[in-house]
């Protein structure tokens, strides 16, 4: 099954309580994806010229302060690491691509979850309810966020196989469905230098978007490319630095409900997740059309 939730704040009030709202939504999707869960939050921009990395190490005692000190020694600035369970957000005084390359070289023992100016990704195996509690998702604020609950079909249940998948700087993907040509596409993308950590089909979709945008496509163009190049069932939600986008395959069997009020835009696999939001009863509600890219940014909606 899998469950997807997304929330985009239009007011300060929703922004401050974004984590609490997203947690309520995620818990409604608990039964759709009891294997693992994850969230991407867009919050607390890194200082100009700097970036932030979300990193994972399975050992709760891992010395994040030492890694942050190494980063400060390399790039300058104050060491900054904030641990959240077995993840940590490290702020680095260098552009995200440089910071990402550095951590891969100097600290191969940690896994990169996300890199960019605003994104933070947290994900872990286990019940979504337990994940939300462990990671304190409810206390996070932010401009927008995506969440996912996974019922595994295509590959093993691991932290790396959980959603969201990073698809580039400040970008991430969550997926409900299954792709049937992922082995072939993965092989092609590996030739293009895209690195994969799992046998997961959704990671291939993430890698595909990363490759298309690296080659100059806009997010909308990359998503439209999915309609040509990815075979299978999908509802995708993609987080960007200033908004999010939704795409369903041309058959559109996998569920998606969108809702909008003056306070927020929400997306979920089932309406019950949206029903938890304040003002849901007065929202404009619709199910996205097949093979159509919907996206929201700061400036407003474009479909």
């Amino acid at each position, binding site marked *: 099954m899998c469950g997807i939730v997304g929330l985009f704040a239009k007011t300060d009030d929703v922004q401050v309580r974004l984590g609490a709202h997203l947690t309520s939504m995620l818990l409604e999707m608990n039964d759709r994806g009891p294997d693992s869960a994850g969230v991407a939050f867009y919050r607390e921009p890194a200082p100009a010229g700097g970036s932030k990395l979300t990193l994972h190490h399975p050992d709760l005692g891992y010395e994040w302060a030492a890694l942050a000190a190494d980063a400060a020694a390399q790039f300058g600035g104050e060491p900054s690491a904030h641990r959240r369970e077995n993840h940590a957000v490290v702020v680095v005084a260098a552009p995200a691509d440089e910071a990402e390359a550095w951590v891969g070289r100097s600290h191969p023992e940690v896994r990169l979850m996300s890199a960019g100016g605003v994104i933070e990704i947290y994900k872990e195996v286990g019940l979504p309810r337990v994940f939300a509690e462990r990671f304190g998702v409810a206390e996070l604020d932010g401009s927008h966020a995506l969440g996912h609950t996974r019922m595994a079909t295509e590959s093993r249940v691991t932290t790396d196989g959980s959603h969201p998948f990073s698809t580039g700087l400040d970008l991430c993907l969550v997926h409900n469905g299954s792709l049937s040509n992922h082995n072939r596409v993965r092989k092609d993308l590996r030739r293009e230098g895209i690195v994969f950590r799992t046998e997961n089909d959704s990671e291939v979709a993430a890698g595909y978007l990363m490759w298309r945008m690296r080659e100059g496509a806009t997010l909308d163009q990359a998503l439209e490319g999915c309609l040509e190049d990815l075979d299978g069932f999908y509802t995708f939600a993609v987080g960007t630095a200033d908004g999010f986008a939704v795409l369903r395959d041309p058959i559109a069997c996998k569920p998606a409900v969108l809702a909008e009020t003056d306070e927020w835009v929400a997306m979920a696999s089932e*309406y019950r997740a949206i*029903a938890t939001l304040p003002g849901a009863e007065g929202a404009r509600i619709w199910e996205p059309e097949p093979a159509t890219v919907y996206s929201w940014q700061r400036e407003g909606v474009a479909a």
Partner: protein
Amino acid sequence: MSATAGTVERVDLAATALRDLNQRLHDQAKAAEPIGHWQILNPSGAHALACGLDAPIEVEIMGHAGYYCAGMNKRATVTVHGNAGVGLAENIMSGVVRVTGNASQAAAATGRGGLVIVEGDASARCGISLKGADIVVRGSAGHMSAFMAQTGRMVVLGDAGDALGDSIYEARIYVRGSVKSLGADCVEKELRDDHRDEVADLLAAAGVEGVDPGEFRRYGSARKLYTFHVDNAGSY
């Protein structure tokens, strides 16, 4: 109808297991004096609510329902005061299922009898493989609605999405608004007096007032696909 007529049996799903509720509703089929009126509180989008009913009872769901609500319904009248998820009233046999809000994909799929009323919008594949049930949608219906619909009637007061009535057999479709596109072998047909009467009856059954049946356009099968060709009859 029974000694308990007039009273309302309220079941709070925040305190009662869904299976226990459905079992109690199923037991009404054999009960000497069925409880005639039920209200389900705090449904919170639960799946498979009030499925497989077979008694002349009224069940009100006081909130949102999840997947397959009122599936296989026989004789019962089920009302969802909210939105319904995928597969509302799937394979309905008889009775009435009404949703005051929107219904998600495949509402009334394979329905054999009875009436399904969606007061908001129905999304994709509404009435797919319809086999005799009637559907009235006050809002709009999504893409691939009435796909391979065999018999039964579908009335849409709003618009219909892409590929309406694709590969349709003998079901009749009436749409008041625009149709984004017609599916394979589905064509517009003349709206005659007997069709106006049919639409008027269906609107009345759904409690829709003040709408002129003459505003609808009728769609159905052109009977040109393989299965309609007499030369293929020997292939079966």
